[in-house]
């Protein structure tokens, strides 16, 4: 939660105009500057199913192999009516000594049975404008 608040104060980078139709994850790519060591993005998660679904939104490494530290998504668990979408905020720290950081964010249904697990992932890069105090 602290990460999210800091990102909002530091100047959240808003993505462009709203999507014409909400989809599972939008946008799926993002690059933006930040004046501090925290970068945030606004993403939109949509429910394409015909029933209400609960989705898990997880910050991952850029290869989508596993969760990462120093990154947070709010809300990370959301239930959507069919055809509806909702914004989530992802914020992550750019480590000391680094000028940029790329993370992945994946959205998948919380409970889905069967041989196929669908997920939509995106990659987002934060670029430091300058180091704090420098």
């Amino acid at each position: 939660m602290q990460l999210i608040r800091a990102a909002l104060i530091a100047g959240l980078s808003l993505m462009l105009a709203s999507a014409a139709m909400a989809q599972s994850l939008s946008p799926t790519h993002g690059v933006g500057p930040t004046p501090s060591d925290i970068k945030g993005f606004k993403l939109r998660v949509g429910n394409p199913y015909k029933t209400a679904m609960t989705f898990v939104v997880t910050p991952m490494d850029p290869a989508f192999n596993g969760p990462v530290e120093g990154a947070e998504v709010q809300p990370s668990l959301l239930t959507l009516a069919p055809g509806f979408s909702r914004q989530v905020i992802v914020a992550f720290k750019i480590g000391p000594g680094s000028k940029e950081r790329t993370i992945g964010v994946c959205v998948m249904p919380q409970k889905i049975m069967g041989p196929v697990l669908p997920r939509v992932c995106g990659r987002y890069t934060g670029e430091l404008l300058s180091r704090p105090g420098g």
Partner: protein
Amino acid sequence: MRVLAAILAFSAVGLAAGYCPAASITFDGSILDTCTLALTSNGTLGASLDGTTMGSEVGSGHAAKMTILSTGSHTIQVAAPSRTSPPPSGYNTATETVAVAYSGETLLSGVSQPYTSSATSFPVGTIALTILDLNSRITNPSGFATGSYTTQTVVTCN
């Protein structure tokens, strides 16, 4: 008063001449790069008559169906499949092979992957809602012990 009179006079002349001021109305919108995956049919595993295969294309099995909608350029990654159910008692896991195959319909008709145990991927550009058919199987020359079997493949759009 003189200004008002002038305005009224000008308006009267304009109406008499058939002049109708026009204004253009502009609508704009934008599309962000987006990707949607929706599993419309889970798929089930059936048993082969010779007892060496459990798959979606044998016995009572049927394929999983997934719809893909993409705006912009994305990659669909189909991870290496695995058996997610615990092995039933007496089941020989050393001789099993889990594989997945898939093929696209309509706008993805050029996508076709034979059964494989490895991770695979294919690119998609901007496409309207299109179906991808996925099949899964477990082959085991040692046969299948009594119990439940489940496979899973993670399909990622990024």
